[in-house]
């Protein structure tokens, strides 16, 4: 993977935190990143040329009035005032290459001196075994701080560790081996149908978690359960959680009115055009 710095821009090496999405149900991680990039008014500093990413292009997603700045599949933005580098991913990964893609991102993070990677991902509500809606939408997390995935700070924030994380479980172990470079994915012993317990380690956030951890970075995955549909609120939930973790306050985002969140311009048509009223 090659990182191409945008002409006239210079990455800020003081941005020691990397915030990025994992592909997940409802595109929640990516929607949350849209919200973060837009609201922090982060500046695009470059793009990634990765052979494992499917191509796509579009017009500027953020606005306020898109002027034709080309949007690419994987882009990096710096929010210097918040010391965060934000990565947005717009297209899927080539089938069977997710771990290699995650390794490439981890290599980039390590090479650019990042200390902490925060991964935003949703989980399929249909897989949730312990539904507790008493306190609203619950945030789950997985941290590299301890071997069982717990982190005191995340616990203080009222979040719950992902109980399904078990580093001794076969797929989590296999991911860890792949991330360490001690196995080839061609030797995948789990080509047959995955079992229930294999679901969580099969998700893209798990690949990112394992690869960043293998590079010695601190990594925190922020997770929320959702069903596919209108996932805007889920995106807000994850973005707010990311801000809490990083000690950011949206109301302090420079220049934004109201609660500080700036809706990306591209969200005007995120679920397609309005219905054709002429049929009535």
């Amino acid at each position, binding site marked *: 993977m090659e990182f*191409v710095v945008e*002409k006239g821009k210079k990455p800020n090496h003081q941005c020691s935190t990397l915030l990025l999405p994992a*592909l*997940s*149900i*409802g*595109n929640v991680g990516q929607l949350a990143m849209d919200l973060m990039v837009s609201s922090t008014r982060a500046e695009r500093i470059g*793009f990634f*040329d990765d*052979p494992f*990413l*499917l*191509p*796509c*292009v*579009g*017009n*500027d*997603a953020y*606005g306020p009035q*898109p*002027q*034709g*700045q*080309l*949007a690419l*599949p994987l882009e990096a933005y710096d929010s210097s005032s918040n010391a965060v580098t934000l990565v947005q991913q717009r*297209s*899927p990964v*080539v*089938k*069977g*290459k997710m*771990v290699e893609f995650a390794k490439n991102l981890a290599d980039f993070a390590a090479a650019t001196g990042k200390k902490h990677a925060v991964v935003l991902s949703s989980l*399929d509500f*249909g897989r*949730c*075994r312990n*539904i507790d809606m008493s306190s609203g939408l619950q945030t789950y997390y997985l941290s590299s701080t301890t071997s069982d995935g717990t982190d005191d700070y995340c616990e203080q924030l009222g979040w719950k560790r992902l109980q399904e994380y078990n580093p001794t479980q076969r*797929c989590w172990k*296999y991911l860890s081996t792949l991330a360490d470079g001690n196995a080839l994915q061609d030797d*995948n012993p*789990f*080509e047959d149908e*995955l079992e229930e317990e294999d679901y969580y*380690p*099969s*998700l*893209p956030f798990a*690949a990112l978690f394992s690869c960043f951890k293998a590079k010695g970075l601190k990594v925190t995955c922020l997770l929320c359960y959702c069903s*596919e549909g209108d996932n805007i609120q889920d995106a807000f939930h994850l973005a707010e959680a990311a801000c809490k973790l990083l000690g950011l306050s949206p109301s302090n985002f420079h220049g934004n009115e109201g609660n500080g969140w700036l809706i990306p*311009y*591209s*969200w*005007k*048509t*995120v679920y*397609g*055009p309005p219905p*054709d009223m002429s049929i009535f």
Partner: protein
Amino acid sequence: MEDVLTEIPPPSRFFQEDLNNFAPPSPPLPSPFLVFSNPKPNEPLRPSLLIVAISSPSLYVFHQLSSKTLIGSLILPEIPFSGNSIEPSLGDKSCNIYTHNDAHDSSIIISVQCSIAAERSNIVAKLLIGEQIIPGRVLILDSVQSQSFRGKLSPDETFAFKLETSSEREGLDDSSLLKGINYFPSGSVVDGLAAALLGRCQMRNIKGTLCVLWPEFGGAAVSLVKSLLQRNVLPGLDLSMNADGVISWTKNHPFDSELYT
């Protein structure tokens, strides 16, 4: 009645394999390559303009162009030659490379008459731009992809949008290749080979323009392609052709089958 907690999840906007770290990769394919009738090793072609025709209307227009010379072809090992003609034909599954015979400029035209899988698009884009062909400027002609377009698409309307690389946009207003064409609306995307090509241009700091037209085929779209080329890209280009029969030809014929080769 199934248990909602344990039943298989409903279809997602993602394919299941998109969200599965352990999905086996597709069997590897041999790399595509370029062949030229007059190859010059270590001497890349340096056209001032590279035009890549992907959409059916643009392929039709360039097929009719008489002032071009076939100089080579992109070979994709996964695309069989069976059914192709000796002389270039619109019905061929091919990716031919032509020079445009004009004393005033050096242009190369690539007619992409076969479907290139998304997974192969990046490697094809690398072959076409930046290694054996190093263009000064690139124009890609494709169609609006209805599955990725978030606006309304009426079969009665004909329109074009563009996307440009930074270096194309940074030029003076007069220098933009497709003046007067609106930018592709934010929120919609273009994927596939066209995206890979424009992305490659952006990465390599090459002036590049992607023009997507609607509808995907038909006389009106062909006329629009002609108009754009003659007005903006290659003024004075002789594109006289018979518009009859345009309506019936489309690149991805629904009855296309290797059974009948």
